């Protein structure tokens, strides 16, 4: 019998396979992005700036973290896990004309969420880990209240609205619609977090 030549392998579809794999990896790999707690620092103090307005003691929620990472909230020792609930109770107290507050309307707590200020004082010896945890809990308290209001008004949580607003895939029209809503919720519970310069020792 005559010797037959081996038939040539059709390589035309190889490129398709390669592209298929390429697209698969393109879709599945994610480039790592950093995430964290965003804060805004106060600007440098001006010498001849008018003195700050007097704040009522009841509108101030003082959180002190000492060098042993212990918390002192409103002159009482507190565990970190209770901080969020305490901050929510303070912000949501609403003793004076606050129609949306659901708090206890206590005499010695904040009058209105728009006036309530959380003051965070830390020591130079406080560990960064603990500081971030405290910041995290306070931000969580604000987010919890904002979520509640957003859920009531628009049926969507504040955090997910914010995420959609910051997502580049969201269309311009959606963003236009989201912006006033976000601002409205932010106005109900403005984030007023003041940080004193840390004490020595």
């Amino acid at each position, binding site marked *: 019998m005559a010797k037959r030549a081996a038939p040539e392998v059709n390589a035309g579809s190889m490129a398709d396979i390669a592209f298929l794999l390429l697209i698969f990896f393109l879709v599945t790999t994610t480039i790592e992005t950093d995430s964290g707690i*965003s804060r805004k*620092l106060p600007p440098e103090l001006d010498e001849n700036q008018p003195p700050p307005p007097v704040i009522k003691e009841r509108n101030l929620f003082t959180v002190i973290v000492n060098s042993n990472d212990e918390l002192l909230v409103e002159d009482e020792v507190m565990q970190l896990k209770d901080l969020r609930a305490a901050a929510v109770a303070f912000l949501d107290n609403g003793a004076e004309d606050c129609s949306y507050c659901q708090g206890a309307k206590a005499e010695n707590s904040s009058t209105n969420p728009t006036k309530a200020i959380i003051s965070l004082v830390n020591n130079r010896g406080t560990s960064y880990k603990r500081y*971030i945890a405290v910041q995290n809990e306070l931000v*969580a308290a604000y987010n919890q209240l904002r979520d509640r209001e957003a859920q009531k008004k628009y049926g969507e949580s504040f955090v997910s609205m914010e995420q959609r607003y910051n997502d580049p895939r969201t269309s311009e029209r959606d963003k236009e619609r989201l912006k006033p809503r976000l601002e409205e919720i932010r106005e109900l519970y403005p984030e007023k977090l003041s940080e004193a*310069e840390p004490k020595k020792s």
Partner: protein
Amino acid sequence: MSKFNKKKKGDLPAISTASLPDIVFMLLFFFMVATVMRQNTKLVKNNLPTANQVEKLDKKDLVMYIYAGEPVEQYQATYGTSAKIQLNDKFADVSEIQDFIYQERASKREEVVPFLTTALKVDGESKMGLISDIKQELRKANALKINYVTKKGNAVEQNN
């Protein structure tokens, strides 16, 4: 029927290499996508604290990084074990932060300068004294937008 007998008999046909470029390109693209460009070699320990109320830091070109923490073991002999600041590829003093910010600003386009954010990648074990020194310097340099970079996770559990 000589028309159909033109094929030479006996020798093997060469394997087509037409798809080789595709494979190579595929690998190239894969590595292009999957690799994260590392701008700085870390000279400090960087075990970030955890938090869950986080925002994403998009637009990497608008972020300036400041690292801080204990020097890694190989540098501990020369620099000691107390927490240090790292700017770009070298250890720096607190007083150098302002210059660093100005330099970074100068290297960016003018219209994006107001949107620059300073990302603080600080080791969880560092003390707040160092961080507040950094923050004071940033205030002086008028770089007010900052972000404490964290890992995702439960902050309360980590601490108790």
